[in-house]
């Protein structure tokens, strides 16, 4: 099964989706086994594809050359405007497919336990498979149009999954909000794609990149189209102005949050920008924009995470923060750091979400820190796995988070002036802070709500197994950066030699940087531990009294949600009322009915000419005759 049959990876989950959607209800165990088989098969096939892909490299003369396998055929053409779709496998997409398939398999297994007893059990797996198929297509597609196809497919599946419990009004609203916000982003993406097509005449990514790098597209034009495409990425990755939908998306079941809102969907934007990075490099200003947005998002969500008490919302904000980190790495034109962080983040964040899920199942559906506390005695395995995940998130050494965040720090040195590095450090500290706060308030200290604490219990093996596997992966994932480890696994070298922008660079352990980032991580952890573990409640309440304004602002997520809601209600819907009023009363009543009434009214006036009296009629005739005669003479004269 060679790399150019990569489309089979997409076909398997897609077929599962069709089968489950049509007759999932009547399948044995409502089709969850079929789902796991489909995603498992894709995982196995992925390894074959990877194996074949790596061996193709042997034939290359020097290892520096960038190799890839592309396969496409024409789907339709209108004159010279032909759309051809196909797959494109290269190191970047290989890693992404790996992340999706591994995380997907584990999460599908986990959700068998989590979703037991749900009303539409089969529908959940159907849409899950649909989502995975769309995500794989997105990653493997070789042209922007097919990418946009998959992009929208991913959006729809996220809408269906967020709105899975659609009986709840909040879930329905959250799904609607998520889809519309990402849809606005997609509008930008579509405009960007068409602008690029207008300049290059093709949708194929590689052709566009070569056209951009060889300067065939004007700088300003390229900048505008890249900004539009970045708009799409911002929508999907819930970056700064569009971040409002991700916290609400937690309404969906936890495996959904794990898979979609941690591992795969939100990182689609990162993949897209990484894929188009050569074009971004042609216009340095765009890289600056990406970095700034990344920074603002990281810091802002860091603060928000500190204020919320719902464990899933904290993880959601942390996801947005980590995405900010990835965009900063991209901004510094280090896709290797960004993709590595993406990979490691996918594993430890899905671990955290799944652990949070098992906490929710274990404590019978409550997820508010104020009720939880001291759970580590009741749920030891979940507690340990949660600890490993949070340490990785806080970038504490040996765990995977540390290596990838270190790479990002290394990348930010590219910006002179160091202000990026400083802000990144600050964001890293914030990350460590809220991660430790989350762990401490959930698992350590006195149980806040005795009732919850008493009947808390460890979740079943189906859910615990994936947790353990993910925990192992989290520990190990960081070491892939080393050359030796990579070579042992069959890769040409360390992670940075596999995924690179211009040329592979061997990872060299820079002790000073490693020490600095370790200090930041431990500092944050101990600071949070001191605040929250010792006399924990008083400190956070003191913040509320000391600076009520700041605290309220944090709790209300800087009032962005209300800002957008007001903007829509007053702006858009107001404009819509005006337009429909205008249509009803001006265009319709005066324009159309007005004309009809005037004709009818004029008719009713003219009818009174007919008085019924003979002399009046005779007068009509006489006047007509005289008028005609005079007019005849006048015209002739």
């Amino acid at each position, binding site marked *: 099964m060679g790399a150019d049959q990569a489309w089979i990876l997409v076909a398997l989950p897609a077929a599962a989706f069709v089968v489950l959607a049509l007759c999932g209800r009547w399948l044995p165990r409502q089709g969850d086994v079929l789902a796991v088989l489909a995603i498992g098969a894709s995982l196995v096939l992925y390894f074959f594809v990877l194996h074949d892909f790596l061996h193709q490299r042997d034939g290359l003369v020097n290892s520096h050359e960038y190799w890839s396998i592309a396969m496409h055929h024409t789907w339709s053409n209108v004159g010279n405007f032909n759309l051809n779709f196909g797959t494109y496998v290269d190191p970047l997409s290989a890693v992404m497919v790996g992340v999706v398939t591994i995380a997907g398999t584990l999460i599908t297994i986990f959700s068998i336990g989590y979703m037991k007893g749900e009303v539409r059990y089969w529908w959940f797996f159907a849409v899950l498979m649909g989502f995975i198929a769309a995500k794989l297509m997105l990653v493997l597609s070789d042209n922007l149009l097919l990418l946009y196809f998959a992009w929208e497919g991913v959006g729809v599946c996220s809408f269906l999954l967020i709105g899975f419990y659609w009986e709840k009004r909040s879930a329905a609203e959250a799904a609607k909000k998520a889809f519309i916000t990402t849809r606005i982003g997609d509008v930008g993406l579509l405009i960007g794609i068409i602008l690029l097509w207008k300049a290059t005449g093709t949708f194929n990514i590689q052709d566009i990149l070569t056209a951009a790098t060889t300067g065939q597209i004007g700088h300003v034009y390229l900048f505008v189209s890249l900004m539009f495409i970045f708009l799409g990425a911002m929508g999907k990755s819930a970056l700064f102005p569009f971040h409002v939908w991700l916290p609400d998306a937690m309404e969906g079941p936890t495996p959904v949050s794990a898979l979609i809102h941690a591992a795969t969907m939100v990182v689609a934007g990162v993949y897209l920008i990484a894929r188009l990075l050569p074009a971004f490099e042609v216009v340095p200003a765009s890289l600056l924009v990406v970095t700034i947005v990344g920074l603002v998002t990281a810091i802002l969500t860091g603060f928000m995470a500190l204020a919320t008490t719902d464990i899933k919302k904290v993880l959601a904000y942390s996801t947005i923060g980590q995405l900010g980190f990835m965009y900063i790495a991209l901004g510094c034109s280090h896709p290797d750091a960004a993709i590595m962080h993406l990979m490691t983040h996918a594993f430890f964040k899905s671990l955290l979400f799944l652990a949070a899920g098992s906490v929710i199942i274990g404590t019978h559906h409550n997820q508010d820190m104020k009720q939880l506390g001291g759970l580590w005695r009741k749920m030891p395995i979940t507690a340990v796995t949660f600890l490993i995940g949070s340490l990785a998130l806080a970038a504490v050494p040996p765990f995977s988070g540390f290596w990838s965040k270190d790479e990002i720090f290394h990348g930010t040195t590219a910006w002179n002036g160091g202000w990026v590095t400083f802000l990144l450090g600050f964001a890293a500290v914030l990350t460590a802070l809220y991660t430790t706060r989350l762990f401490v308030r959930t698992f350590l200290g006195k149980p806040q709500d005795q009732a919850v604490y008493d009947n808390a219990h460890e979740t079943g093996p189906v859910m615990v197994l994936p947790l353990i596997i993910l925990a192992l992966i989290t520990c190990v994932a960081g070491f892939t950066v080393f050359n030796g480890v990579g070579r042992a696994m069959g890769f040409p070298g360390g992670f940075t030699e596999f995924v690179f922008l211009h040329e592979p660079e061997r990872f060299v352990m820079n002790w000073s940087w490693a020490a600095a980032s370790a200090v930041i991580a431990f500092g944050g952890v101990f600071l949070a531990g001191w605040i929250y573990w010792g006399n924990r409640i008083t400190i956070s309440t003191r913040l509320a009294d000391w600076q009520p304004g700041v605290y309220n602002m944090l709790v209300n997520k800087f009032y962005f949600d209300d800002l957008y809601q007001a903007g829509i209600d007053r702006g858009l819907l107001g404009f819509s009322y005006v337009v429909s009023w205008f249509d009803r009363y001006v265009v319709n009543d005066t324009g159309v009915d007005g004309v*009809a009434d005037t*004709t*009818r009214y*004029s*008719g*009713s006036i*003219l*009818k009174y*000419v*007919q008085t*019924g009296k*003979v002399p*009046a*009629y*005779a007068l*009509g*005739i006489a*006047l*007509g*005759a005289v*008028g*005609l*005669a005079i*007019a*005849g*003479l006048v*015209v*002739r004269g």
Partner: protein
Amino acid sequence: MRDYTIFIPEFIAAGSALGIIAVDLIWPRVRKDLLAYLCAVAAIAWAVASVFYIGKTPNSFQGLIQVDDFTTYFRLMAAGIVFCIALISPNYIRGRIDAAAEYYALLLLGCCGLVFMAAARELITAYISFELISFSLYILVGFLRRDIRSNEASLKFILLGAFASAIFLYGISFIYGATGSTYYDSISKAIDANGSNTAIVVGLMLILVGIGFKLAVVPFQMWAPDAYEGAPLPITAFIATASEVAGFGLFLRLFSSAFHTGAHEWAWAVAILSAITMTLGNLVAIQQTNIKRLVAYSSIGQVGYMLVVIAAIGYGDAHAGAGASAGLLIHITGYIISTLLLFAALIAYYNRTGHDTIRGMRGMAETQPFLALIITVALFSYAGLPFFAGFTTKLLMFQSATSNGLLWLIALGVVNSAISIYYYMMIVREMYLFDPDENVKRFSINPLLAGLAGVLLLAVLFIGIYPGPVLHGASKASTPLFQAGADATSNVTAQMLPK
């Protein structure tokens, strides 16, 4: 050179008119329906006789009456009208009119007048036949002796008719005075030779008044709504068809052969009259509640559309004029058939329910679906909707009349026919959208009427779908109009006048 053989069809018609009166006098107790069938048979004989003249070389009686394809076309139309009116009248007349014989005789004589109006090539004959059909109409309108509305209508009709014919005569005297002759050809040669002067212009305008009155052109149309409403139903149909056909017969003949050389004098006047007529006719029709008055205004509107062709004759050259008058002939044929179809249904409904207001037709789709279908088809044909005669004929007429100068008038005509769709739909609305009043139950209609209505319905559909043959006949009829009929009359005038 008095060739009486050319009048055989008219002799048959007039003879049978007198025959009907004789039959009534001899057998007073004969059933009145028999007279109707006699009249119908006479009409058929008339049509058959006139068919023989198709394609014959046109010869004229002393240059006064020209029998050519144009006259044959009008003979066939006249025969058709009499046939249909004769068949739809009997069960209307049964209770209401006692002098049935005179009724049918006048129908026949009136239509003779119609044919001669179309066939005349000389002003005196034209005037005489103009008066012949007017007189028969004055009497027929007043036939319901005890109904005050019929009396009032005929009074108005005759007073205003006399007034208008006086003006018409005054115009003719001026034309005669200016050109020295009453023969159309010598008039046109005279105008062509020494151009037009004030006398001719005034004369032309006054002639326009006379014909305008007959066709109910605005501002001379005020008699029409009252006459339509007052007259008995079959006679309303007779007025709507016969007087229109007669008026346009005279209009076409007179203005194509006599005044075509002085066209720039009257073309603009006809265009303006046409514009006013169609607009007022359609606008006032929207408000009507009585079906007969609505048909009156709708026929005023239709006259407005047909005047466009006369204006086109004025603006265009001989070839364009021939094409345009062919369009007019096919439209007027379609219009007659639709009107007869409409009135056949209205009479059947009136005989049974006695309603002639639109409100009275409520729920007809329930009580008598066949009649409702007939009325809808007739109205849609008036409005010019597809598959029905109105659409094809109106389209062909307007298309033939299109010339750069007249496009505004045709645009107005099209807009007016769009307006007319509204009030025809209002009648269809009354019939289909509402349930009938409780006391009216489903009833059957007289088989004769139903048969006639069915035939007319097929005719309307035929013209609407396949206008080929009728258009061919109309174009053959309109060709002789524009050939200078010099050969027929020149030798006669020379011969008559003493050397």
